[in-house]
Every structure is written in structure tokens, then in C-alpha cells.
């Protein structure tokens, strides 16, 4: 990813900052200038709570340049609790444990490096929600 682009999108990628539309109250991620639901100017920032559900998923065996060393890895369409869907890697889970409908939560993780001397990019990934519960010693 280009450095200025990485800088511009840091709040979205580190903290899931999106928007709530002032006109139709729908949640929007990533932030846009125009609400995709009602076409009015999109609204104030909103920090998503980071939990959601796997809408679909895939395990990649032929990664694009920059991701070669990570393959195979799992990518999912995650529907956030507030409504919007996004594309993200899953982490802390085996590929064969993933299923549609699985509850997940956002964790910031290292995504890739632009070569040995390049920038290290961090981004949201998602892990199974039970991991949080397990860490806290709570059964779910």
C-alpha cells in the first residue's frame, strides 16, 4: 500500500472508525462522502464496537504479491453488528474451524510489510468471539 494512503486510512484500519448517517441513521463503514443508503452527505464519525458475524469466507492458496509468505490464510466477509459488511482476514483460528454465521471480533494485527525495508502495515483482522471470553475465563 502507498504510504500516504496508509496514513489517510489509519483510523479506519486501526480502530474501525466509520460514520453514522445523520439523515437515515444507518451505520457506514468505511466512511464515505455520500451515504450509500440515502445519498445524503454522510455523517459524523462512529467507532464500531468490532463484533460481527462471518457472512462468507475463503482460504487463499494463491496469494497476490506481498502476501506470499502468509499463504494459506483465511479471508472473510464480516457483517458488523451495526450493519455494514467488510472484507478482512481472520486470525487465531484454523481454516477448517471457520463457518458461515460464526461470531467474530476485531483485533488490530500486522497485515504485511512492503518488502524487507518497507513500511509495516497494520489493519483490522477478526478472530472468533469465544477467544475474548476464553481469555477472560468466562464460558460462553
Amino acid at each position, binding site marked *: 500500500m502507498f504510504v500516504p494512503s496508509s496514513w489517510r486510512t489509519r483510523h479506519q484500519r486501526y480502530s474501525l472508525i466509520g460514520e453514522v448517517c445523520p439523515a437515515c441513521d444507518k451505520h457506514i463503514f468505511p466512511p464515505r462522502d455520500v451515504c450509500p443508503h440515502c445519498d445524503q452527505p454522510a455523517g459524523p464519525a462512529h467507532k464500531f464496537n468490532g463484533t460481527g458475524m462471518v457472512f462468507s469466507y475463503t482460504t487463499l492458496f494463491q496469494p497476490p504479491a506481498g*502476501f506470499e509468505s502468509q499463504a494459506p490464510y483465511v*479471508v472473510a*466477509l464480516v457483517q458488523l453488528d451495526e450493519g455494514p459488511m467488510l472484507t478482512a482476514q481472520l486470525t487465531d483460528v484454523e481454516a477448517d474451524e471457520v463457518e458461515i454465521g460464526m461470531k467474530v471480533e476485531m483485533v488490530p494485527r500486522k497485515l504485511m510489510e512492503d518488502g524487507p525495508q518497507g513500511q509495516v502495515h497494520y489493519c483490522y483482522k477478526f478472530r472468533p468471539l469465544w477467544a475474548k471470553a476464553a481469555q477472560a475465563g468466562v464460558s460462553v
Partner: protein
Amino acid sequence: MKKVCIIGTGQTEVGEHWDKSILHLAHDAVMSALLDAHVEAVDALFVGNMLSGALSGQENLAAAVADFSGLRNIEAVKTEAACASGAAALRMGYTAVASGLHDRVLVLGVEKMTNTLGHDTTAALGMAADAVYETFQGVSFTALNALMMQRYVWQYDVPDTGLAGFSINAHRNGCHNPHAMFRHAITEEDYGRSRVISSPLCVLDSSPICDGAAAVVLCAAGSSSLSDGSRHVAPVTILGSAAATDTLAVHDRSDPLRLAAVELSTQQALAQAGASLDDVDFLELHDAFSILGAMSLEAVGYAEPGTGWRYAMDGYIDIEGDLPVSTQGGLKSRGHPVGATGVYQAVEAVKQLQGLAGPNQVPNAALGMIQNVGGSGASVFTHILGI
């Protein structure tokens, strides 16, 4: 608006042309099309291409092609709409002639993909998707289709090899297309054994990385170009031309399994042609992946949501079926040289309508629909051709 005819076609074999640059490929298709049209010159050149910058280091591509092919000084423009760049060029050419601005234009689709290593090509293709919120996450273009396929299979309870029918049909038809990249048949067993690229999507769900160029010559009906006595086949008319878009990212669609732009552009093209789905004798759809075949059949309107895959399994899309699909092998078997594909579809449809499709001839084909999809459904162009 003037009526627009296709009076000549040209195409290179689709494959790995290590010995040809993008300009050589372009030139081969341009020359065949001019020869076939019995014309030496055109007023303008529209070039559909997605990746000449990334994979050949060459932009200003249309001027480069015009120069290299000896079409000196004419208007030349490149159009880009990802994998639908070819159909975008066809539509620009159509508009230029329909408007009366030009009497005769050449539309070229060309892509040179074998200049780079696999993962670089994979990354370049990813530029068809959202750069920040899809590609940057490590998602390949194939993976985006795999995400749609996984959900489709789950939601509609499709059996393991349920989507095999599209590839089997494509390969069966490709066997008889001398310009196709793959000319061998495959079975459901082959499909079942095929290596997984991005689960559940396997090699035999996917169109290949390849090179190719295709061209058509357009002219206005009634033009002097049409009255050339040496022509021995009837020109084909573009009866409908339409374009529509959808969200760039799959995750931004209210229903990621619905190709809204396919639906919309189909309806517009049919309306312009004054035709209905029943009038369509064959369909060249954008089967870059099996899942796109199924979802397209549904969005075009032939199948209810979740049932598209069944149509490929029961003979419906065969050459002899109710709706022949991908009659020269489609993207899966003829090959999918990205920005060239939309023009290959036009070339193949013209041959069907002229009765020159050889062993893959659809009997009494009088009306064909061709559809080219850019990205995971974001840019869609539908054309209806008739004779």
C-alpha cells in the same frame, strides 16, 4: 441515432504468446479485422485494455496501437472498465458511429498477461477491486469470487460439484474453437479432483491467465463501406447497447449474491433492441468463474435466485439447449485475456449470427446477447446483436 453494423472481425488465438508484445498482438487482430471487412482505413480506434500499464509499462496505448498498426493520425482512445474494458470500447465505438461522428471505426480488445510472474499478475488483476478495503486485505480477485461462491453454495444448498456444469459446457464448446486456449473436454470427475485455489473455488472454476486480441470493424448502416461488392456475408447489427455499474466492493452490496448491474444493463439493452429474453438465441456471458455464470443467469433473468447452477447441469445451456451459453468456450475455455474478452464475445456472436460458427453453430441464430463484467460485478456492458 444511426444504425450500427459490424462488417468485419479478427482475433488471435488465445494463449501464452511469449513471442509477441501487446502491440504485435493488437496488430494481428487489427489486420485480420480490416481484411475481413474489406477496408483499409478507419476513422477512429477504440482500444479496450485494463493492464497495459501494469504488465507492459505502456500507457497511451491506443496511440501506440494506431502507430504500430499503420493507422496513422486517426483518433485513438483506450477505455478501461477492468475485465469489461473490451465491451466498454465496443460501446464507445458504437456511440461514435451511432452519433454520426464517424462513419467507420475499429474496436480492439487486447491484453498481454504473460509478461510477469504469477503473483504480480494476480496483484495487478486485484486493481479491479477496491484497492484499500478489498485488495489491501490480501484478497485476490479470485478470492472475491470464492467469497461469493462459498456463500452461494451455503445459502442455496448446492452439492459439491453443483457448479461444474458451466465449465463442462465451456470446455465442450471450446474443443471446436480454433482460437480457444483450452480445446479439451472435462468431466464432472475432473472438476471434483481439481486443485483448490481459494476455497471452495478450484482451478476448473476459473478462467486462465492468457494473452489475446480481438477486433471488430463498425460502420453506419447505409454507409458506402457496406456496399462493397466483394463482401459475401451479411453484416450484423448492434440492436442494443447498455452499461450499468454497481458498488465496487462486494461487501458494499445489500445482497452480495445479486448482480444488480447485470440485471439493469440487460433490461436496458433488451428494451433498446425491442426484444425479450425469449428472443435471445444464445448468450455469451461473463463466466470468468463458475459462480459468475450462475449468478449471471439469475440476474439476466433466466433463472430464479439460487437456481442458476441447475440450468448448467441439465443441458439447458448446451448448443442444442434452450439457451446456448458460451458457445465458443466462453472465458473458461476460450480464455479471458481481460481487456480483450468483451471484443472476443462480439467476434464470436457475429460468427454465430452469420452461420459461421462451425461445429458450435446454434441453429437459426438470429439474436445474440453478449455480456462483459468488470470487477466482481461493478461494471457491466450488455450488447444485443442481430442479423
